[in-house]
């Protein structure tokens, strides 16, 4: 089965689902899709780093919580 070569979440879901089916674990596919949605929200959280962005406040520095 052809699967995407990049490492986006949609590619991860396609690749992972294909691997689960290959291993006889097809019942995992809906769980993988659901986990993909959850990981999408994790990746969009505002604490994540971006190598091109300005430095973010350290979460241990309480000033940004005020």
């Amino acid at each position: 089965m052809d699967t995407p070569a990049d490492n986006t979440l949609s590619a991860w879901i396609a690749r992972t689902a294909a691997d689960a089916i290959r291993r006889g674990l097809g019942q995992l596919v809906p769980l993988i899709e659901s986990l993909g949605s959850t990981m999408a929200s994790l990746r969009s959280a505002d604490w994540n780093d971006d190598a091109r962005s300005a430095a973010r406040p350290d979460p241990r520095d309480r000033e940004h919580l005020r």
Partner: protein
Amino acid sequence: MTEPCLLSITDLARRMAAREISSVETTRTCLDVIAERDAELRAFITVLADEALAAASQADADLAAGRRRGPLHGVPISLKDLIDVAGVPTTAASRVRAGVIATHDAAIVARLRRAGAVIIGKCNLHEFAFGTTGEESAFGPTRHPADPSRSPGGSSGGSAVSVVTGMAFASIGTDTGGSIRIPAAACGCVGLKPTCGELPLGGIVPLSRSLDHVGPLARTVADARLILEALHGARPAGRAPDRPEPAALRLGLPGDYLMETLDDAVRGRFERALAALRATGVRIDDVRLPHASSTPAVYLAVQLPEASAYHAATLERQPGDYQPGVRQRLELGRYVLAEDYVRAQRGREVLRCEVDAALGGRDALVLPTLPIPAPQLGAQTVQVGSRTESIRAMMLRLTQLFNLTGHPAISLPCGTTADALPCGLQLVGRINRTDGLLAVAHVCEEILR
């Protein structure tokens, strides 16, 4: 008059000291309840009747000779069956561990014995503690004592059932996403998750090593404190912190994500509890946890791969020995990417700092423990208002945050629904201040009783 097997440990110790009741008599009453009710409820996997009676007899002899070993002298206590007792199987409620006999006591079991406890048996759980209902166990589901068609919560469900029915005076459970507090709330007892790292986990089958905690389920806050002191072992127990006056207490009430999805009956009981606390002068004000809605994503990205790493070899060797749902979740965890695990660790730090900030100037946070009453066995979803929610997500929703952050948290009974199903009130304290949390909980317990 309260039946002997339903006394608090504090009251039992007083009666034992006055020679009104012996440890052997006490242990026999617990064994009688097990014999009478456990075929239906399945709270126990292994009952250590002979060993418990022998230990109780020794406790009576020691007391007669003036040797009192500690605050739990002669008190029957149960253990979740993923905690090692030398010479006894540790099943973790799984066929995967068939034939595995512990060679040593877990560190906390050795400490319980030093404090005089009588180990009465090992309790049923959700397989490998990987679930919140107790349904997936190689030994059959544990059932709720008030309604056997329902789950007692999990994963320490057998422990909670043993405490509320009189099969044991207290139990030791583990809590990775709420597994002590959830069944305590569902069954109507006290459940304490201490600060992360406060108690040793040696000799306990792990679920997720960075989220795992061990702690007591008990009938009262005072009993939970007695057990916690025993579990601290060599550390001096110290004097209990002064119990604050209600008017000196200040609690923070989180909103938004942690309060927006509650069953109506649970919300009603919680609001009545808040009104009762306020009526005695407790100050309760709103606090914000801006990233609380990220909790499930952060939790999954940490918990799933940590659990899968522990099980990787047996998933390859004997996959058919796992309960199907547990196997699926473990296999799922093998696909989580390391970069997502790292993102989650960063999120964990953000959440920890937000909880710390919300506790600033306050004694504890207050929220419900469970957003729904004990669910029906076999159900996958539950109706909450107009929404259909996954039971697993609902059971973990209000507790897992504090496993990620490591703050100590306790669940107290907070009344029942119209169907006589218990509700729980959760208090969350400062890191490394479990003693302070217990002092707050004691005051709240007296007001809510």
